[in-house]
């Protein structure tokens, strides 16, 4: 321990991406101008990640379990007749580099993986729910009930659809979007056997794969040739900044990239591209 003391004293993000994450840093770019709010990603997530269907009564109590949700806001200006349509927002775990949820977990059930993911170990969780109360985006979902057993969320033969690559979570456990870590794991393992790194486009999340307009781009930020990396650089969004340089002077050249609630200094790994509306129309 004393030998490499400095290793234990570093903080993230250091500003040098390759130093923080030598191999992988999974990240997303979501184009809000392409997102039509069709909910394909939501269903894909249910299918991939064994999310329980909670039913009307529990939904009423706000106990729904969707890891990714489509939010619909209205414009404050034309509230009577929304001439510019609605505003859609796919909100999922932002996999923050400095995640507020990680530090507060009493048992360390949620940590930061070398791939820059915000891991959640279901088995370790004791359900203090501190992580969720500290999450600015409120994208962590808690198993208020024993859905598989007592609530019978999967009557036979529906359990046959369950994905064996993840557990079915029981009551009292916090869960959240994992960037489909089971897919990432498979791809990494395959690449490793072939003695290489995962190539761009080789693996993607369920939501990104299903999105009909391809609004969601997923990839490895460290990989210089990855699409997502290009987009981040193009939009001049720096993972390790809480105020982007382009925004300091009011973003005159109109670059669309931004991150939600960036000023909270959680350094989220999901970049959104601003929705566009034509003022002539």
């Amino acid at each position, binding site marked *: 321990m004393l030998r490499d003391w400095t290793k234990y004293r570093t903080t993230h993000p250091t500003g040098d991406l390759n130093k923080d994450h030598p191999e992988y840093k999974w990240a997303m770019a979501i184009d809000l101008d392409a997102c039509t709010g069709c909910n394909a990603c939501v269903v894909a997530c249910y299918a991939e990640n064994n999310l329980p269907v909670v039913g009307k009564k529990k939904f009423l109590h706000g106990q729904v379990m969707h890891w990714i949700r489509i939010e619909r806001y209205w414009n404050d200006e034309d509230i009577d007749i929304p001439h510019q349509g609605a505003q859609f927002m796919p909100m999922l775990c932002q996999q923050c580099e400095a995640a507020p949820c990680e530090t*507060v977990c009493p048992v360390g059930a949620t940590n930061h993986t070398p791939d820059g993911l915000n891991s959640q170990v279901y088995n370790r969780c004791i359900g203090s729910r501190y992580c969720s109360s*500290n999450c*600015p985006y409120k994208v962590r979902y*808690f*198993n208020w009930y024993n859905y598989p057993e007592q609530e019978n969320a999967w009557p036979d033969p529906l359990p046959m659809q369950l994905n064996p690559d993840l557990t079915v979570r029981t009551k009292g*456990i916090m869960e959240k979007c994992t960037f489909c870590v089971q897919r990432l794991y498979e791809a990494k393992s395959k690449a490793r056997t072939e003695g290489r790194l995962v190539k761009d486009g080789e693996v993607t999340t369920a939501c990104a794969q299903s999105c009909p307009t391809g609004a969601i781009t997923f990839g490895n930020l460290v990989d210089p040739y990855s699409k997502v990396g290009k987009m981040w650089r193009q939009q001049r969004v720096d993972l390790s900044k809480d105020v982007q340089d382009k925004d300091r002077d009011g973003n005159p050249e109109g670059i669309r990239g931004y991150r939600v609630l960036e000023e909270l200094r959680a350094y989220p790994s999901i970049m959104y591209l601003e929705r566009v509306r034509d003022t002539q129309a």
Partner: protein
Amino acid sequence: MNDFNKEEKDIRDDIAWAQINKDVLQSIEKPRAAFWYLFAFAGTLFAIGVGCEIYQYQVGLGVANFDNPHMWGLYIASFIFWIGMSHSGTLLSAILHIIHADWRKPIYRFAEAMTTFSLMTAGLFVIVHLGRLWQVYYALPYPNERWAWPNFQSPLLWDATAIFTYLTSSMLFLYVGAIPDFAICRDNAEGWRKNFYTVLALGWMGTDRQWRNFRVSYMTIACFLIPLAVSVHSIVASDFAMSQQPGWHITSFPPYFVAGALYSGCAAIITLFIMLRHTFRFEEYMTMPILDKIARLTFAIAMVWTYLNFIEYASVWYGDDMFAKQVLIQKATGPYSPFWWAMNFLGSVLPFTLLFKKIRSNLTAMLIISLLLNLGMWLERWMIVAPTFSHGYYPWTIDHDQWPSFVQWGIVLGSFGWFGLLFMLFCKLVPSVSMYEVKEMVYHRTLGRKHLAQLREA
């Protein structure tokens, strides 16, 4: 000098030491009937709580009607409340002990007991609130076959450590302070009680050697307890202050919490003071002047709390944290507003009634006021926890109508029952007035009078 005579005495100094033993020891044998009514009442409440907990345990936390934004509820609020309660015990027994305010002597014993038991209650809430409480041992730092340690960065873990320290220390403090009284009980009791007290008294004989070390160590522990008590509630405060949520992320939280703690504690002491005075016929020892002193103390602390409270509001209002400001506004105008205003009224306005001698010397009035103050303090804790959840950073999950279900209320009630049971059992087994210290008090008063007489002659 003259006013020393005029001032009515907080204890009769001609009261015989043997009498003290008699009075106190009888409290252990035969209290008034009221005691048993209270005991039954506490039992019922506790039973309700247990029922709710079993239900919640089997079905899941959903039955408490939590949801995505509202992750915590009454459990955490009550947790803070009980931690707060515990502080006044330390205040009376340790702080006043160090500054040699000897009017504390008749009442500090039960205050100290209150500390211990309210800490036990608070500890229960931590567990009740867990989603998988059967896994709580994951949070214990013991070497295990998983090779996984708890996360020492989490304020919750600091809580656990601090509370454990506080609980054990104040228990030891309570016990050490009671050893001479156990000796008295030993010398006067028969039957199983004799053996019981013999064990507890550890063969105390009141030799000068014992007294000497007793004095020193007791003082030392007292010195430890004071910073400990302060740190405990600061850490509880940091559960919130160290998080990122609007309305929680406030620098002035730790002192604010400590003040609130002492406040609710003093109020609780008044309540219990009056109850014990009645049920155990302690009119001789828990005298009105002492009550008067506590009342004044309470008022002082109430003012401190009010001040810090307004500091908090002001810092939010004049700060540029839009989110926190929205929470504050929503507290004052949203669905929580009745509770919020009630809390401010009970916490800051009601104490002014304590300015009036008439009220201070009226037991019924004091009982009611102290209960109301406690209610106010409990509301304060709730108003810290709930509104932030209902109006956090993220607009989509902002949700103003989620109220605790009967399960939460039931368990909160149960906690009062649990506390009541423990406390009353204690009073039944341990002299709730420290006999030897009352003797000291009387003795010193006698000396004081002698000394005065000599002065007069001269």
